[in-house]
């Protein structure tokens, strides 16, 4: 999983049926200092995140399918949390 910042929304009418009814958000990956790494993902959102939110993203198929309750789905990136706070002790 990685930290990200929601930077936009993606609208797609024609899409694989696994994405029907799902909200798609553009998420910039962040490093631990909160700076963008340059990587991004189009993510399915299951936690009602919005633009500007710092989020937790899982980019792995098995986890994504489990969340979407499907045995087969061409989905990888899913927003699974909205981050309130990160405490780095070192």
């Amino acid at each position, binding site marked *: 999983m990685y930290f990200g910042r929601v*930077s*936009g*929304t*993606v*609208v*797609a*009418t*024609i*899409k*694989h049926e*696994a*994405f029907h009814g799902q909200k*798609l958000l*553009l998420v*910039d990956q962040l490093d631990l200092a909160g700076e963008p790494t340059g990587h*991004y*993902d*189009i*993510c399915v959102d299951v936690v009602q995140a919005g633009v500007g939110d710092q989020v937790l993203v899982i980019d792995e*198929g098995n986890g*994504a399918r489990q969340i979407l309750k499907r045995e*087969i*789905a*061409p*989905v*990888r*990136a899913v927003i699974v949390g909205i981050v309130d706070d990160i405490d780095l002790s070192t």
Partner: protein
Amino acid sequence: MQLARVMGTVVATTHYQGLDGVKFLIVQPLSKNRQTKGKPVVAADATAQAGPGELVFIVGSREAAQAMPIPFVPVDHAIVGIVDDVET
């Protein structure tokens, strides 16, 4: 899942048996600002409706094959949506 632009089509008459009827397109992965990012790849079109010039979104690795009618096929990138709009 990433944005990509369809650049062209691929015809391969001889192919693995599970790939009958699967349309292959050449796509250029893009940054979120729609700038070229990395090298073009061949992607299977799971929407069956994408065409050259269109902005699409793709999924990579094993999940790509799961977009196909037969989910255990040798496909490593698939077009899973045609993008109407990106609002940033």
